[in-house]
């Protein structure tokens, strides 16, 4: 592969690639992102490759492995093009039939089809799945067409045409202007206007002319995996965005800081960078423009705090991930004291789109204050778990019920957590709130990076608050007093409450302490840490009161406040629970009602889990 030396050469290559592809040709696609792999997608992919070889179909049928298609609930998934027939929960054993029936003869295999729980209908085509109905998959739709190890797939879709435009048809100031007019706001959580960061960094003086652009792929919010999916499935999208940004801001050195827990993202990004260099999109004299730029991958070491910009940069420099005060912004003095622009993965992914289609087109999507789309990971107590891309302005109700398919097992919706450990919960009464940076802030939560965790009547909000504070005490860097010691004492108070040892005064103290930690902490981790506690106190104060006054956990979660008993009606005396009980707390003869000794019971829940007759009750 000879390096492309001009925009014209790129277009010639693109035409050539597209002309060699027949959209009517049968193509078998399976997704091998991390969630697919965790469910056995590797085996399915191998089986397909082997079977195609065997049947001699290799020459007439294409096979493509892609990243995540978004509907993680039905993985491993196989999609047959051009019809886009979709099969769910595929196993290697299903593969021969798929090839002999669907690929060869076009016949649909009924048992592998997804059934829509609402209508009871079996869905044949991927686009008809209700989960996708209200989504606007601007950034994520391309993933199903792209093998992340093959740059040609990205080029065939129009990839790197935005770069070409930015390098040859636009002046950097025009590119900056487009980003400004687009209203793009940071997708990492805080929603800061992207153009302001770019502008500040661009005009900041550098003591030796070097300035940096960094992609923050530290995605630490537990429950959020949008960035992972983008990096695994379409790494070139981010690379292209970064090259455009670097050109606009006059930077020649870029970094992608990826968290340690994403090995596949690191691998696919590495392969993509190599290929980009081969083709001439990275390195010296990009596309013959005279612009030099390259990107290095830097891995995190397992620290949530390294998602904070100054801690990330400290870690990149080889120090501990300790933040500093941001009175002097990183755009002025960042990595190695030089002007640095740091943007989130999804923010970078939006850049080529805006350059190609223009700000005017982009601003048609979304609300007044929040333009474009946002990717969310819809998880927790929800039927349709997956990665969802929606236009800003859609309501939470639509997300939970229309896209998410509602709460499983007929349980009642209780709250949805947005913004991870920095955000807050939103109760049923506010479900008609629209997904918008400012609306969510007003409600006491925040957009965050996109983690959206749904909770039902069996989720204890006090337990959730305790969970988040515990998480943050483990992730606190320990530098400043309010965060290090304050969160630790907040955890003490929440532990007491969930163990039935709390007092009414504890609730007031939690609020007071939370308020001070918010104001007094050095960085954003401490500054937002009290949010889950404060927001659950705001909307679910009664639950706290029940814990301290009545010593009761209404949701049936807090171990010290619940009791496991055996239901006399359902128990068949099968002895399974008694045999497995780690504390030997269950006694009972065969075929006779079993009894749990409350003194010995440690509430581990194993009996409830193992009982096939629903005979273990929790009160």
């Amino acid at each position, binding site marked *: 592969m000879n390096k492309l030396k001009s925009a014209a050469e790129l277009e010639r290559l693109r035409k050539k690639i597209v002309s060699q592809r027949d959209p009517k040709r049968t193509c078998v696609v399976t997704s091998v992102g991390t969630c697919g792999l965790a469910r056995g997608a590797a085996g399915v992919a191998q089986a397909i490759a082997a079977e195609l070889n065997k049947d001699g179909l290799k020459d007439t049928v294409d096979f493509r492995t892609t990243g995540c298609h978004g509907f993680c609930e039905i993985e491993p998934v196989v999609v047959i093009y051009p019809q886009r027939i979709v099969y769910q929960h595929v196993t290697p054993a299903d593969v021969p039939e798929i090839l002999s029936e669907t690929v060869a003869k076009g016949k649909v295999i009924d048992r592998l089809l997804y059934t829509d729980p609402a209508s009871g209908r079996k869905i044949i085509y991927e686009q008809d799945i209700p989960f996708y109905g209200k989504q606007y998959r601007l950034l994520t739709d391309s993933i199903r067409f792209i093998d992340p190890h093959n740059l040609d797939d990205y080029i065939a879709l129009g990839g790197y045409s935005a770069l070409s435009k930015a390098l040859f048809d636009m002046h950097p100031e025009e590119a900056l202007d487009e980003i400004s007019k687009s209203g793009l706001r940071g997708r990492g959580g805080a929603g800061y206007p992207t153009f302001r960061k770019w502008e500040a960094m661009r005009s900041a003086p550098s003591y030796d002319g070097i300035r940096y652009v960094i992609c923050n792929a530290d995605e630490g919010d537990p429950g959020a995996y949008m960035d992972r999916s983008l990096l695994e499935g379409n790494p070139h999208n981010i690379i292209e965005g970064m090259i455009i940004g670097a050109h606009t801001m006059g930077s020649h050195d870029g970094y992608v800081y990826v968290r340690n827990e994403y090995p596949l993202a690191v691998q696919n990004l590495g392969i993509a960078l190599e290929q980009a260099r081969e083709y001439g999109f990275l390195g010296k004299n990009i596309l013959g423009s005279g612009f030099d730029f390259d990107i290095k991958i830097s891995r995190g070491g397992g*620290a949530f705090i390294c998602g904070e910009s100054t801690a990330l940069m400290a870690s990149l420099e080889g120090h*501990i991930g*300790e933040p*500093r*005060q941001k*009175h*002097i912004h990183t755009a002025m003095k960042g990595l190695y004291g030089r002007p640095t622009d740091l943007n989130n993965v999804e923010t970078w992914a939006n850049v080529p789109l805006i350059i190609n289609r223009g700000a005017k087109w982009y601003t048609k999507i979304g609300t007044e204050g929040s333009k474009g789309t946002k990717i969310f990971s819809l998880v927790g107590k929800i039927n349709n778990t997956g990665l969802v891309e929606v236009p800003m302005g859609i309501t939470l109700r639509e997300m939970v019920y229309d896209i998410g398919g509602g709460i499983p097992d007929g349980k009642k919706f209780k709250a949805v957590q947005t913004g991870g450990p920095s955000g807050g919960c939103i109760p049923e009464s506010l479900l008609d709130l629209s997904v918008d940076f400012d609306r969510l802030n007003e409600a006491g939560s925040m957009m965050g990076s996109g983690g959206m965790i749904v909770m039902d009547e069996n989720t204890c909000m006090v337990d959730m608050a305790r969970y988040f504070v515990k998480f943050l*005490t*483990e*992730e*606190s*860097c*320990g*530098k*400043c*007093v*309010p965060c*290090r*010691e*304050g969160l*630790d*004492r907040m955890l*003490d108070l929440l532990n007491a409450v969930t163990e039935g040892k709390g007092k009414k005064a504890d609730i007031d*103290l939690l609020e*007071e*302490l939370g308020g*001070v930690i918010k*104001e*007094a*902490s*050095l960085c954003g981790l401490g500054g937002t840490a009290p949010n889950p506690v404060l927001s659950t106190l705001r909307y679910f104060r009664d639950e706290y009161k029940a814990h301290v006054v009545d010593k009761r956990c209404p949701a049936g979660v807090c171990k010290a406040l619940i009791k496991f008993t055996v239901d006399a009606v359902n128990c068949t005396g099968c002895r399974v629970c008694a045999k497995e009980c780690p504390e030997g707390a269950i006694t009972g003869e065969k075929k006779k009602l079993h009894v749990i000794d409350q003194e010995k019971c440690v509430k581990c829940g194993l009996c409830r889990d193992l009982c096939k007759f629903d005979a273990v009750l929790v009160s």
Partner: protein
Amino acid sequence: MVELTIDGTKVRVMEGTSVLEAAREMGIVIPTLCYYPGLTSYGECRVCLVEVAKGKGRSSLEASCAMPVEAGMVVLTNSEKAVKARKVVMELLIASCPTSKTLQDMASNMGINKIRFAIKDRGCILCGRCVRFCKEQMRSGGIGFVGRGTSRKVATAFGVTPVECRNCGGCEWICPVCERACTANNLVNGLCGGCQNVAPVETCRICIGCSESVGAHGHSVY
């Protein structure tokens, strides 16, 4: 020169001065622990918090030792919000390092009479003065921060005396808390205040840094 307003009074200071230093030039004393002249500011203890106006009726609390002055800034060093936050921070400090005369006296001066949080004696407030002194003044850098969160400690690599150590004793000397270990036998609710109660002195009500050789006669500051 930069002009800003502190506690209602306009003041002009050189660019690059911190709000803390600007206030001190005016004779306003703000309590400090991790700050030490000659060392880079760190912003760890949060005891030097002041309230800074942010426009539209909003304000934020900032560590004055780490905040450079800006033209037109409006600062309140003793507002209700700042004092309230400082008190809670002080409570947390005592809760994590109770046997320190410096901290006990500071708490007494702030009018704290109850520590409402569990006492967990870490024996250190992690102000980092020793670390910064070793690195910046002695140019050795043999000690540093190790671990994370509440397990964070000042230590040497692998617990052995580092080759860089010159036995200067600077780390011990500059420590604001361990130097003045409290010798009172019983802490009530984490508080002692024994020294202050037994021999009350007229110290400036906020900072304890200069009251090194406090005597029964007291002394006046500024």
